[in-house]
């Protein structure tokens, strides 16, 4: 639609009013854009984090994790933040735990951290799994890899660079990428999975390079436990502790939900803050827009008076104002969301690192829903603000409006 051309349409009146007042229009659009930007940015980040922890909760699958005493925070770092670590415990803990009443599966893992040096292609968490007993990673490795993992084969997380058939080096030894998993939004995305024997060999290679004491024969790092559900994870933890002795056993029994629960609790608080901030921002924005629309309406009293004298009805005049504000709100909303996406999407890795939350993960559908929601809320703010002004102006006597416009 071109302003200045005839014939002019009713929508053209609104368009020309916006186009011929570029400063006013840009200011109003910017105000709505800021609101939409914050709403979308906030909901996208919080949504990603919540979605990531949900994914982690589903993928972990274990009720309890058995770790060397004092390593409960370390496993949290591995699972949630992708912080590589190396620690060991004795293999027999897997059998011991399996014998406890209520345990239906117990599978060991071995954690080995590679490092940023010429010996290793990338710094990553190497996780050795026992393919016969594993119930945590095996089911979703199966979706990427139909057969078993052979010696020297690895499966890489979604964030690891490298394609199936490619090679990665760890501690001077070459491994073949057998499969690559989808991104999960968890610490597993940066991990390397291999069978237990390969992982033990990697641990020995590592200790040779670092000079650290070699891992004990048949070493493991953790045992993932699945229970029959008769006891709560906390009650099971108490039963394990009482069987092997508190403090003396040298193990930590951590209900899996506690790991995620700590994060979830923090996230709930964070989400609450963001929601409250967004609500306050929305109110402020409605207020600011109301003031701006009100000032604008006052400025335009003579214009509205002229239109009334030309025969525009109150309803049509209100619809003209609403049409203008709808265009402003829509343009502002879309601009804000676009800018927010422009900031978030290319820098999501940086944001993950900055806020130490690698489990940020938001499926496109959820991202679109967040965009639609932010657009709707920003649009509503603009419309609400203009409706008040247009209702006020339409309720006035036309001659009064013209006289005030002249004053």
């Amino acid at each position, binding site marked *: 639609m071109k*302003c*200045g051309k*005839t*014939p*002019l*349409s*009713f929508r*053209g*009146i609104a368009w*020309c*009013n916006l*186009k*011929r*007042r570029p400063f006013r229009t840009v200011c109003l659009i910017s105000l709505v854009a800021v609101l939409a930007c914050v709403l979308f940015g906030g909901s996208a980040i919080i949504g990603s984090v919540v979605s990531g922890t949900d994914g982690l909760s589903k993928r972990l699958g274990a009720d309890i994790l058995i770790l060397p005493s004092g390593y409960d925070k370390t496993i949290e770092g591995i699972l949630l933040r992708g912080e590589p670590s190396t620690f060991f415990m004795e293999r027999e803990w897997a059998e011991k735990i399996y014998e406890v009443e209520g345990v239906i599966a117990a599978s060991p893992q071995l954690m080995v951290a590679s490092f940023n040096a010429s010996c290793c292609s990338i710094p990553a968490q190497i996780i050795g799994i026992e393919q016969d007993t594993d119930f945590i990673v095996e089911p979703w490795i199966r979706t990427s890899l139909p057969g078993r993992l052979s010696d020297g084969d690895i499966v890489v997380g979604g964030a690891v660079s490298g394609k199936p058939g490619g090679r990665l080096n760890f501690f001077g030894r070459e491994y073949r990428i057998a499969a690559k998993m989808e991104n999960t939004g968890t610490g597993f995305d940066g991990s390397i999975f291999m069978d237990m024997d390969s992982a033990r060999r990697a641990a020995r290679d590592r200790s040779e390079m670092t000079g650290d004491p070699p891992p004990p024969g048949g070493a493991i790092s953790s045992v993932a436990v699945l229970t029959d559900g008769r006891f709560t994870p906390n009650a099971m933890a108490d039963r394990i502790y009482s069987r092997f002795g508190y403090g003396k056993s040298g193990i930590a029994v951590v209900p899996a939900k506690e790991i995620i629960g700590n994060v979830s609790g923090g996230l709930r608080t964070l989400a609450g803050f963001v929601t409250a901030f967004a609500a306050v921002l929305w109110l402020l924005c409605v207020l600011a827009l109301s003031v701006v629309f009100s000032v604008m309406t006052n400025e335009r009293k003579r*214009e509205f*008076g*002229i*239109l*009334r*004298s*030309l*025969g*525009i*009805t*109150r*309803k*049509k005049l209100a619809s003209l104002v609403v049409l203008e504000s709808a265009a402003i709100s829509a343009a502002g909303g879309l601009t804000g969301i676009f800018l927010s996406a422009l900031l978030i999407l290319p820098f999501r890795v940086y944001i993950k690192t900055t806020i130490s939350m690698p489990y940020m993960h938001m499926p496109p559908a959820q991202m679109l829903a967040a965009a639609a929601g932010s657009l709707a809320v920003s649009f509503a703010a603009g419309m609400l603000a203009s409706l008040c002004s247009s209702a006020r102006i339409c309720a006035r*006597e*036309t*001659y*009064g409006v*013209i006289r005030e416009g*002249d004053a």
Partner: protein
Amino acid sequence: MIIEALCLKKKYFRDENSFMAVDGASLSVGEGEFVCVTGRSGSGKTTLLNMLAGLLPPDSGSVTFEGREYGGMNDDELSELRNTRLGYIMQGPGVLANFTVTQNVILPHVISGREGDPTDRAMSLLEQTGIRGLAAQYPSSLSGGELRRVAVARALLMSPKLLIADEPTGDLDEETTRGIMDLFSSIAKEGTAILMVTHDAETARRCDRRYDMKAGRITSPGAHLG
């Protein structure tokens, strides 16, 4: 009669005091008549005109346009009347700054929602008012007289039965005033009734009849001139 007002009253409040802006004014305008309302500033002429245009409801009294009383009409009906049957030229530059001269002129057609392109009619009215060459200009580049001509052309677009003009020559020079008055005389001769407010006695001499107003009252009841 095109329009007939009977005993119109309008009271205004200023601070805590009230005063009668229009106090029992009655007048009428017939088809093709050119009628003036004169009086000093503050005598209630503009308030009277706005009541006649349906822009301001009177406190009491009635206005009848082509046999229909305003009191029985809702906003949609009054708006349609202003849009199609009654052209109104308000005091001062009553054009919209965001639109070109042509767009300003065709605004009543756009508001009416009617089909068709009124550009040709607008161009002929601009020709008639002597500003066709300014059709593509925005109001900011026009003089006071030119703006008034735009308002006149716009008021005539829908071929109204009555043209109401509030001080159409108020701030114009002698030559431009003469041009506008010549235009009004020719419009009236073509059958469109004109009711014009002016405080200039010389301008008022061009009208067929004249009402004088003083302190909200009509003091000379529409005497024929010349």
